[in-house]
C-alpha cells in the first residue's frame, strides 16, 4: 500500500491559539484512518486542513507541509477547487441542498462543466450506487432531498461527494447524528468504499474506530500523541495518554 497523503510538521493557529502542534503522519491509500481524541483536541481542524477548508477561517495561520499526489497543497500554484474535487468532505450533520435528489448529486459534476445529459445521468447513478442508496431513491430522483430520512440524507451527501470522483474522502463524525441502523449502513458503506477511495474520518465513537478503521490517530491538545495500526492501538497502546483516553479515564 503506498502513501497518498504525507503531513510534515503541520502547525496551525487560530489567531494566537495554536490548534495543531507539529503534526506529522503519512496516510496509506485505499485505507480507513480514524482520528480520535477529546473535543477541542484538533482532530477536526486537522481533517479540514487536508483540503484547505480552514483557509476560510479568519486569522488562521498554517506552517508545515501536506503533500498530496506529490504536491504541497499550500503551494501558491495549487488550484483549491481541484484539490477539493480530489479530496472531498462529508459533514457531521447531513446537509443536502434544498433541491431534488438528482440535482444534489449532479451539482458537483455540473460545477466542473459536465452538461451532457447522458453523462450526467450515468455519473449520478454511479455515485448513488456507490453510496448504497440507489435502490432507495431511483424512483424519486426528482423529489426534494430534504424528504429523505437522516441516514438516507447522509448517504446522499456521500453520493454527492463521490460524484466528482475524488480520491480521498474526509468525514467529520459522519454517523453522530444517525440512529444505530443508519450508522451501521454508513459503516458498511465506508468499508466498501475503501476498495476505491482513501477515507479519513473523525469519530467520537471508539468502537466505531476499532470496527472500521485500519489506522487510528489519537490527538490531544493539538498534538498527535499516537498513530498506528488500529488493532494495536486499541489493544496495546504505547502512550499512557492514549490508554487513559480510550479506556475512559479522561476526555
Amino acid at each position: 500500500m503506498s502513501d497518498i497523503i504525507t503531513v510534515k510538521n503541520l502547525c496551525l493557529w487560530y489567531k494566537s491559539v495554536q490548534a495543531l502542534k507539529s503534526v506529522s503522519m503519512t496516510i496509506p491509500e485505499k485505507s480507513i484512518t480514524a482520528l480520535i481524541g477529546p473535543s477541542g483536541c484538533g482532530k477536526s481542524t486537522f481533517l479540514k486542513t487536508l483540503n484547505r477548508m480552514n483557509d476560510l477561517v479568519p486569522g488562521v495561520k498554517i506552517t508545515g507541509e501536506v503533500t498530496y499526489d506529490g504536491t504541497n497543497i499550500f503551494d501558491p500554484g495549487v488550484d483549491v477547487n481541484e484539490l477539493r474535487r480530489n479530496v472531498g468532505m462529508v459533514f457531521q450533520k447531513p446537509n443536502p441542498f434544498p433541491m431534488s435528489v438528482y440535482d444534489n448529486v449532479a451539482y458537483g459534476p455540473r460545477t466542473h462543466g459536465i452538461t451532457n445529459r447522458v453523462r450526467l445521468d450515468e455519473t449520478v447513478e454511479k455515485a448513488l450506487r456507490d453510496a448504497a442508496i440507489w435502490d432507495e431513491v431511483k424512483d424519486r430522483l426528482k423529489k426534494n432531498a430534504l424528504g429523505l430520512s437522516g441516514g438516507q440524507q447522509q448517504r446522499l451527501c456521500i453520493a454527492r461527494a463521490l460524484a466528482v470522483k475524488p480520491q480521498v474522502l474526509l468525514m467529520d463524525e459522519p454517523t453522530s447524528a444517525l440512529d444505530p441502523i443508519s450508522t451501521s449502513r454508513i459503516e458498511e458503506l465506508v468499508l466498501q468504499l475503501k476498495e476505491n477511495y482513501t477515507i479519513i474520518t473523525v469519530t467520537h465513537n471508539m468502537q466505531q474506530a476499532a470496527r472500521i478503521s485500519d489506522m487510528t490517530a489519537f490527538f490531544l491538545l493539538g498534538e498527535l500523541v499516537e498513530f498506528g495500526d488500529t488493532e494495536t492501538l486499541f489493544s496495546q497502546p504505547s502512550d499512557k495518554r492514549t490508554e487513559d483516553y480510550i479506556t475512559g479515564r479522561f476526555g
Partner: protein
Amino acid sequence: MRSKFDEQLGLLNRKMIETGAKCERAIAMAATALLEGDTGASERVAPIGQEIDQMEKEIESICLKLLLQQQPVARDLRQISAALKMITDMERIGDQAEDIAEIITYLNGRTGEECHGIRSMAEAAIKMVTDSIDAYVRQDPELAASVSEYDDVVDEGFDRVKRTLIGMIRDNPADGEYAIDLLMIAKYFERIGDHAVNIAEWVEFAVTGVHGGE
C-alpha cells in the same frame, strides 16, 4: 468517571485471586496426602474442586457482563480476556487435584516413597501454580516468565518417574497397579505444571500486551 467499571474490575480481580488461592490449596492438599499416605484426602479436596467450578462460572459471568456493558479496550480488554482464558486452566488444576486425591484413596496408605522423582515433581508443580498466581496478584511479568522456565524441571521429573516406575514393574510385577497409579499421579502433576504455564502466559499478556508463549 468510570467508578462502576473500576469497581467491577476490582471484583473480577478479587475473584481471580480467590480462585487462584483455592487452586494452590487443592494441589497442596493432594500432594501432602500422597506423601503422608492419607487415603481420606479425596473428601477434603473434592469440595474445593467444586468451589473452583462455581468460581469459574461466576468469573465467566462477570467477564461477559463487562464485555457487553463496557466494551473494554487496551489494558482493560487484556485483563478481562486473560481472566477468561486463565479461569479455564484454574478449573483444570482443581479437577486434577481432585483426581490425584482420588487415586491416593486406592494406594492403601502407600506414599510413593520408592519413587523419589514424584516428590520433587509435586513440589515443582506447587511452586509453579503458586508463582503463576502470585504473578497475577502482583502483575509481575518477570515472575510469570520464570514459571515457563520452571516447566522443564517438572518435565524432567516426569521422565525420571517414568524410568523408575518401569524398573519397579520389571522387578516386582505384583506392584504393577501401584506403579500405574503413581504414573497417573505424576502425569497429573505434569499437566498441572502445563496449566500453570498457561496462566503465567496470560498474566504476561494482561500486563504487557505480549502473550508469554510468543
